[in-house]
C-alpha cells in the first residue's frame, strides 16, 4: 500500500518496472488526496462517528454486562440469552428494514443514523465479553464496599471499573475498530458525499468508472489504517489478554 501510494503514475502503470522498487519518490497522491478530494472531511466524520458509537457502546454494555453478571434478578438468564442471540444476528440481515426505520425517523443521511445503529452490532458482543470479564472479579471486593456503605453506582465506578480496565480497553478498541471499518450501514444510510465515512468515501468517490486512481486510493487506505495500527501495536498484549479472558469463554 505504502509503495503504491508514493509512486508517480508513470511508474505505477509501467509494465516492466519491479513493483517493489521506487524510482521517483512522490507525494503527489497524498497532495491530491488532501487537496482535491473530501478525504479530510471523511476522516473527521469517521473519527466523530466512531468515537460517539464507542462511547455509547461502552456505557450501555458496561452497565448491562455488570447487571447481567453480578446482580441477582428475575429473568437474568433470559436477558443474557437475549443479548447472546442478538450478537448472532449480522448487520447484513437488518440493513434494509433499518434504512426504512431511520428514514421514517427523519435521521437518514445524518451522522446520528450511524451513531445509533453501530451499537446494534457492537453492544451484544461487548456486553457478552464484559460479562465474562466481570465474572473473574472476586465478589469479596464488592462486598467490602457494600459493607462500607457504598452504593451500587459508586461500586461500579470506583471498584469495578479500575479492576476491569483490560476488559474495557479491549471492548473500546474492538468497538472503535468495528465502527471505523463498518461499511454496509455507512454505505446505505448516508448518501451525501460530505457526510460519508472513510471506507465508503474511498470506495465510492475515489474510484470513477474505468479510470482507476490507484495511487490516491492506496494512500487513502494507508492513511485510514494508520491510527488503528499504531494503537494496536501499543496495546496488543492488553488486547490479547482481554480477549482470551473474555471472548473465548463466551
Amino acid at each position, binding site marked *: *500500500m505504502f509503495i*503504491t501510494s508514493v509512486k508517480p503514475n508513470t511508474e505505477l502503470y509501467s*509494465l516492466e518496472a519491479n*513493483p*517493489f522498487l521506487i524510482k521517483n519518490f512522490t507525494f503527489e497522491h497524498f497532495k491530491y488526496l488532501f487537496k482535491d478530494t473530501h478525504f479530510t472531511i471523511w476522516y473527521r466524520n469517521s473519527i466523530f462517528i466512531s468515537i460517539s458509537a464507542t462511547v455509547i457502546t461502552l456505557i*450501555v454494555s458496561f*452497565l*448491562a454486562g455488570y*447487571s447481567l453478571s453480578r*446482580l*441477582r*434478578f428475575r429473568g*437474568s438468564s433470559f*436477558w443474557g440469552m*437475549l443479548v*447472546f*442471540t*442478538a450478537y*448472532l*444476528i*449480522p*448487520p*447484513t*440481515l*437488518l*440493513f*434494509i*428494514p433499518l434504512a*426504512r*426505520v431511520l428514514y421514517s425517523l427523519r435521521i437518514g443521511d445524518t451522522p446520528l443514523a450511524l451513531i445509533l445503529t453501530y451499537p*446494534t452490532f457492537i*453492544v*451484544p458482543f461487548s456486553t457478552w465479553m464484559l460479562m465474562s470479564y466481570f465474572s473473574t472479579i472476586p465478589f469479596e471486593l464488592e462486598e467490602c*464496599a*457494600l*459493607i462500607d*456503605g457504598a*452504593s451500587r453506582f459508586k*461500586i461500579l465506578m470506583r471498584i469495578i471499573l479500575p479492576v476491569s480496565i483490560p476488559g474495557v480497553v479491549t471492548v473500546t478498541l474492538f468497538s472503535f*475498530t468495528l465502527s471505523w*471499518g*463498518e*461499511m*454496509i450501514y455507512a*454505505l446505505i444510510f448516508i448518501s451525501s458525499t460530505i457526510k460519508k465515512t*472513510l*471506507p465508503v468515501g474511498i*470506495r465510492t468517490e475515489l474510484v470513477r468508472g474505468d479510470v482507476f486512481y*490507484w495511487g490516491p*486510493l492506496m494512500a*487513502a*487506505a494507508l492513511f485510514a*489504517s494508520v491510527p*488503528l*495500527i499504531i494503537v494496536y501495536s501499543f496495546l*496488543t498484549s492488553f488486547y490479547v489478554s482481554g*480477549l482470551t479472558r473474555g*471472548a*473465548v469463554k*463466551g
Partner: protein
Amino acid sequence: MVYRKDYAAQVGYSVEKMNRLTVEEFLDMAKKLDWSANPALSAYEPASENLFPIGWPGPDAFPTKASVRAQLLYILPIMFSKVVVGESTPDQAIAWAENELRRLVEEEVAYIMIAPAVFIIFFLIGYPFVYSIFLSLTNTSVGRTGSFVGLLNFARLLKNTIFQRVLINSGIFTVGSVTAKFVIGLAVALLIEKVTKGSKFIRGTVLLPWVVPTSLSALAWWWMFNPNFSVLNWIITCVIKLSSGVPWLSDAKMAMFSVILVHVWSGVPFFAISLLAGLVSINREYYEVADTEGAREWQKFLYITLPLLKPVIAIVLLFSTLMTISEFNIIYIITGGGPRYSTHLLATLAYQEGIATGNLSRGAAISLFLFPILFVASYLQIKTVRENVRRF
C-alpha cells in the same frame, strides 16, 4: 408465643389486613402495639429505619417512592408475621427481610442498568427483524407502499437461476473459507504456542489482518489482483516466468478463489487467537503423562489436544460460519459480485436488489434466506455455551 392474630386483636385489624399494611398503617400499628409485653420484639421497633440494606441510599434517594413503599409493604408485614406466627426467630426474620430488600433493590438497579441494552436489542434489532419479515411478504419498493403478497417473493427467488447461483456461491464461499481458516488458524495457534522467542512480535504480526478492517485491506487486495500493473501478476510473469498472468478477478472460478483468499487472510487471526486461548488453558499434566508413556507428537495432538479443544473449536466454527455467510465488504469492494454473478453472496445480492435497484421486499426476502442458517448455528452455539457453563 405471641401470634399474629393477637397483634391484630390488639390494634383491631383483621389477619388479612395485617398482611397488606401500608407504611403508615404499619407505623401506626407499631405505635399502638404494647411492645413491652414481649421484650424480644421491642428490639425491632426502629426496624423500619434499620432495614435498609447497607449501601442503599435511603428511600427517597434513588428509585421511585412508590417502589420503596411497595417493598416496605411487602417485606415488613411478612417479616413481622414470620416472628409472630413462630415460623422463625426474630434474628432470622430480620436477616430474611434484609436479604429480601437487598434483592429487590438489586433487581431494580439491575433493570435500570440493563434497560439501554434491552432498548437497543428490541428497537434496533428485534423490531427491524420483524419488519423485514413483514416487508418480505409484501411487494414494497422505494416510493411505493406495497400490498400483501404472501410467500410470492420467496417462491420467485427459489425459481430464479441467478438466486440459485448465489445460494451455491454462498455455500462454496462459506465451506471453503471456514475450512481454510480453521486449518490455517489451528496451525498458526500451535506454532505460536511452541515458539517462545519473539512471541510478542509474532502475535502482533498475526493480528495485523484483523486490526485493519476488511473495508480498507480489501482495497489493497483489489490493487494486488490488478491483472496488468500489480504485484501478484508481476511475480508470476517476471519472477516465476510464466507466460501469462493469472486472471484473478475476471475468470469466474478464479474470482471466487480470490475473494475466499482475502476472507481467509482476514479471518485467520480470529481462529488463531481463540484456539491459542484454548490451547493455553489445557492442563500441562496430560502431556507430561503422555510423554512418560512414550506418546508421539501426533498422538498427543490427536488424543489430547483435539478432544480438549473441542468446545472452543465448536464455538469458533459456528461463529465464523455466521460471519462468513453474511460477508459483504470484501465482495462489494473487490468484485462487486461479478463476473456475471459468480461471486455474489446473499448479502451483496440483497444490497443490489433492495437498495441499488430499490426492490425493498425482494431484498428483504433475500437477506431472510440467511435466517435458517443463522437459526441452526445460533441454536447449536447456545447449546454448546450452556453445556460449557455447566461444566465449569
